[in-house]
């Protein structure tokens, strides 16, 4: 934003570490969102050309990929569904990447309280991803 408030007079937490944290978190989110939007859009456009179950390389029709192997096969054959699915996976991983980036930044700043806080969140997220099935 550009405007009279773009550089506010000394907010209480505007010391450098918080500002840097903000910029890094915003950048990680932007990269994740842009990358996933591009992939999902590419998959969607491809689906208009060859259908969701088709393949841009002319491979036999295939269904929705539900595991890593099927996703890799779909990507090799440029299947619209696999391309979009990779974009959705990127979207789902973006919040986790944001927590991981914060953890690194807090560690660099030696902010012990928030290193512990972000580590707990990250461990719980990974537990949810791996254990609960």
């Amino acid at each position, binding site marked *: 934003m550009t405007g009279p408030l773009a550089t506010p007079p000394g*907010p209480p937490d505007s010391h450098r570490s918080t500002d840097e944290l903000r910029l890094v978190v915003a950048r990680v989110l932007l990269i994740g969102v842009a990358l996933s939007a591009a992939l999902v859009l590419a998959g969607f456009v491809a689906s208009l050309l060859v259908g969701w179950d088709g393949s841009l390389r002319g491979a036999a029709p295939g269904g*929705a990929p539900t595991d890593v192997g099927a996703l890799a096969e779909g990507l090799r054959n440029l299947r619209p569904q696999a391309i979009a699915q990779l974009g959705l996976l990127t979207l789902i991983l973006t919040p986790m990447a944001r927590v991981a980036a914060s953890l690194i930044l807090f560690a660099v700043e030696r902010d012990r309280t928030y290193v512990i806080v972000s580590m707990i969140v990250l461990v719980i997220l990974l537990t*949810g991803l791996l254990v609960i099935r």
Partner: protein
Amino acid sequence: MTPGADLALFGISVLSGIIGALAGVGGGILVIPALTTIFGVDIHLAIGASIVSIIATSSGAAVAYVRDRLTNLRVGMFLEVATTTGAVGGALAAAVVAPQLLYVLLAAVLGLSILQQVSRLGEELPPEVVPSRAAAALRLASSYPDHRLRREVPYAARRVGLGFVMMLLAGFLSGLLGIGSGVLKVLAMDGVMRLPMKVSTATSNFMIGVTAAASAGIYLGRGDVDARLAAPVALGVLAGALLGSRILVRLRNQQVRLIFVPIMVVVALQMLARGLGLHVAFLG
């Protein structure tokens, strides 16, 4: 899906993204009923698409909110300990707890909160808050630039413990019932901890992505995230969330509450209908 249906779904998703970005809630309240009632989609696929829409709303709007200092990162990250713990606990408890009663209880909690929200309709900023010792230790106090009031607004947090417990509950319910629980998050930050309304919705928006991501793996593994549905939803919600995040900075806190209260009423009715086993169109 036909191109026409795709376009309609995209439009609904844009709307859902705008509302979600403004009110700090996920897209579930709009996306799930729309998919099941208008498009006749299976509920599991609808919930899978809604998980995607929650994360898209969150990450899409948070880019701007974090940069513009509306999101309080420390409040968000600290309370995420509670919401993610609660979410995993809720997912584990799903096998042993009957959800009917919980829906009714949640509806009752929301019903009571409606009274509190209505009593605050004319309030632009919370009264000056003396930060509690926990809030000071966690450095939760901050300030945000209010473009509408044209000044920097300092604020502090109080009743951090109670807010934390409420976030545990919010996470537990989202893990158990598959709801985004953005409404409960806003109520914990605005109602209990007395953060300004815009900071509460922006920080809730920031947090719902992580809560949803905690359970997204489960839905992905089951094949509930179907790209054919989720692709137009994700694109529409992202566009809507980007748009919504440009609107929020221009609104007064009172106007944000005016948007939030009707959403809360709808969610309360949806939960009541589910708890009583009623199937009403658009109440899910």
